[in-house]
């Protein structure tokens, strides 16, 4: 046993797969210790906030420590964040449409461009060939560039409860800074928020956990069924073998995907928990294990040590447990690993069809994918809603397949490079 393990851990492929898998497992265990938010808590008002650090504006304004930093590029940064190159080109287009000669417009000179813009832009004016959406875009652009070249600070005002008038309580200068560590409320959203306004990273970690659980439950169910049927079929033979192989061959050809869809739909949305889905997946994917175990058992059945055990009068149960199982254990483990990864994929496919576990209880990788697809994250360019999910699924299956290949090479010397 110890030697086998040593051999297994000498296989490079197995180690790489094992390390990736352990890293995912550690993430799932450690992350919730630090971030204690509920994974499905809706924190954002609105959908698909981009990844980044969110600093509370109220706290930043009311901070007691204001630092003045005189940075050379501050004004340029401010202008370029409000007026991108595309915006400049769009302005030029409008001005040309308005009749300003093209050689007078210099998009790289912000001051002169804005000067021209201010003089000529009229929100009511109709430029021929411009659709309504473009007109609205120019109105928004005009609002955003107002006061962009100003060097004055913004005035803070508060409502006086007695007179009902606004009174100045302070100013925010353009060179004022806060230290982000001193702002009371800062939230890092490394993967932004999803369509419902939930933190994608927290959700993703929980989803990996649930998907792995689904994989394990489904894998164990499938392996137990496959192992039992394979042992019976291979060892007993005769009509038992014929019966079991008949059923196995039937379910090999009839696509398990179709069975999954039919069963999940019949169970109904309300009864579909993560565990139910896992068991259903397990019940529809045992055929490969049965075939593999059966062929192994048939080759073992007439070995000397098994025959000796038979002569010694051991029971079938004893023979299977002591003389057969230890020899096929490695195959069963490999089959289990493959079952787990294919179960995780099956859950994801089902969820994309809208037949996954009940929503609103736990996230799974498939459900996250489903939500992102329903809200068209891929068309809207909200990569953080779906790409991490695909990467997570790929990492899980990749690590499992690597472990499987590694084990295969250890136990099956013909395959070694």
């Amino acid at each position, binding site marked *: 046993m110890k030697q086998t393990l040593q051999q297994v851990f000498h296989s490079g492929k197995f180690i790489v797969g094992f390390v990736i898998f352990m890293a995912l497992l550690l993430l799932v265990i450690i992350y919730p210790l630090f971030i204690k938010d509920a994974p499905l808590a809706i924190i954002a008002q609105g959908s698909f906030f981009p990844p980044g650090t969110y600093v509370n504006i109220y706290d930043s304004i009311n901070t007691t420590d204001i630092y003045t930093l005189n940075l050379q590029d501050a004004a340029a940064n401010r202008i370029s964040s409000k007026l991108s190159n595309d915006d400049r080109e769009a302005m030029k287009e409008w001005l040309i449409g308005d009749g300003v000669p093209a050689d007078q417009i210099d998009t790289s000179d912000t001051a002169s461009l804005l000067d021209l813009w201010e003089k000529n832009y009229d929100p009511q004016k109709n430029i021929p060939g411009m659709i309504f959406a473009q007109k609205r875009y120019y109105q928004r652009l005009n609002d955003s560039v107002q006061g962009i070249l100003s060097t004055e600070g913004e005035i803070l005002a508060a409502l006086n409860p007695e007179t009902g008038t606004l009174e100045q309580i302070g100013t925010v200068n353009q060179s004022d800074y806060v230290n982000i560590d001193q702002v009371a409320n800062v939230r890092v959203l490394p993967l932004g928020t999803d369509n419902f306004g939930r933190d994608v990273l927290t959700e993703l970690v929980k989803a990996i956990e649930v998907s792995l659980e689904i994989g394990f439950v489904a894998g164990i169910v499938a392996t137990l069924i496959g192992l039992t049927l394979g042992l019976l079929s291979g060892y007993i033979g005769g009509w038992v073998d014929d019966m079991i192989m008949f059923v196995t*061959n039937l379910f090999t050809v*009839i*696509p*398990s*995907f179709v069975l999954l869809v039919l069963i999940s*739909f019949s169970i109904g949305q309300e009864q579909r928990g993560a565990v139910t889905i896992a068991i259903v997946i397990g019940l529809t994917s045992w055929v490969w294990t049965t075939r593999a175990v059966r062929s192994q058992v048939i080759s073992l059945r007439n070995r000397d040590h098994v025959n000796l055990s038979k002569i010694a009068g051991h029971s079938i149960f004893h023979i299977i447990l002591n003389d057969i199982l230890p020899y096929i254990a490695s195959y069963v483990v490999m089959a289990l690993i493959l079952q787990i990864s294919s179960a995780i994929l099956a859950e994801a496919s089902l969820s994309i*069809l809208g037949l996954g576990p009940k929503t609103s209880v736990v996230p799974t990788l498939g459900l996250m994918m489903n939500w992102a697809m329903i809200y068209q994250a*891929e068309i809207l360019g909200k990569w953080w809603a779906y790409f991490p999910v*695909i990467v997570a699924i790929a990492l899980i299956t990749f690590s499992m397949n690597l472990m499987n290949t590694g084990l295969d090479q250890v136990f099956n010397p013909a395959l070694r490079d």
Partner: protein
Amino acid sequence: MKGYKKYFLNKLLWFVITLVAAVILNFILPRLMPGDPVAGIVARLAQGMSSSTGMKAVYEKYAELFGINKPLLTQFFLYVKNIFQGNFGSSFTQYPRPVLDIIKSSIWWTVCLQFPAIIVGWIIGNTLGAIAAYVKKGFDKVILPISILIGNLPAFGVAVILLVIFAVDLKWFPTSGGYGFDLIPTMSWQFVWSVIVHYQLPFWSIVLVAIGGQAIGMRSMSIYELNADYVKYARFMGIKDRKIVGYVFRNAMLPQVTGLALSIGTMVGGALVAEIIFSYPGLGYMLLQGILGQDYPLISAVTLIITLMVLIANFAIELIYGLIDPRIKAAQAE
């Protein structure tokens, strides 16, 4: 010819048995669930319907279609009779359009998309796998990791990535549909071109997934064969390398053909999900529509048709296998 005839009859019998089993499963699985299936369907269908006489009429219509008041065996024969008459009932979501009509309009999209894609993927995958096994060194070092990477991406993942890169970012291809939304299906050049353009992304996403899986299998099969004793013997005999390679890959191909027959169900399942990502108007998309609208007759019919397609494909592959497997040929010669 005797050997092949026997083989053919054997496979035909097996095809009929699996077909019967599939029909039984399609019939029995939804009815195994506790409760009255028709009541459940009507409850879902009648959401927002206030008139109780209307609900009763709907209930009676489906009770008659399903024959739920009769014994299970009678119900089954009624079901089989309806299938043979092509009577799958009316769709709930597109009422009163018959389900048969929806299936007819979507099945060719799926057939024309999936089977060419799976076959092309299989051929490219096997070629790459064989080359990787034979050349080894540089080529193998590139092909193997890429195949493993793609083989591990889920089918919908490949579809989404292709969609984002080529349709959303580069705008080379449209993001969804089977043809331009502003066109009416006719045999005009414009329409055909639109269909071809819409075909590319779903097609290549299925091909890519198939390549990944097949290349790995073919590579290890070929390595196994290349190290076999008959290859060494042939080398000692001085037979040309080119000729040996021909033998080796023909032997390595056979398990790959069986592998295709066994995995075609899984491949079709993955491809259906890829169809959904591209909103391609095939069976996968119809299945999604059915599930979203709790449209039981549509789901039941689509699953049955998909099973039928997979079984036929499987049968066809088995027949081809019989033609190319030398062992069955040898039996024919006797």
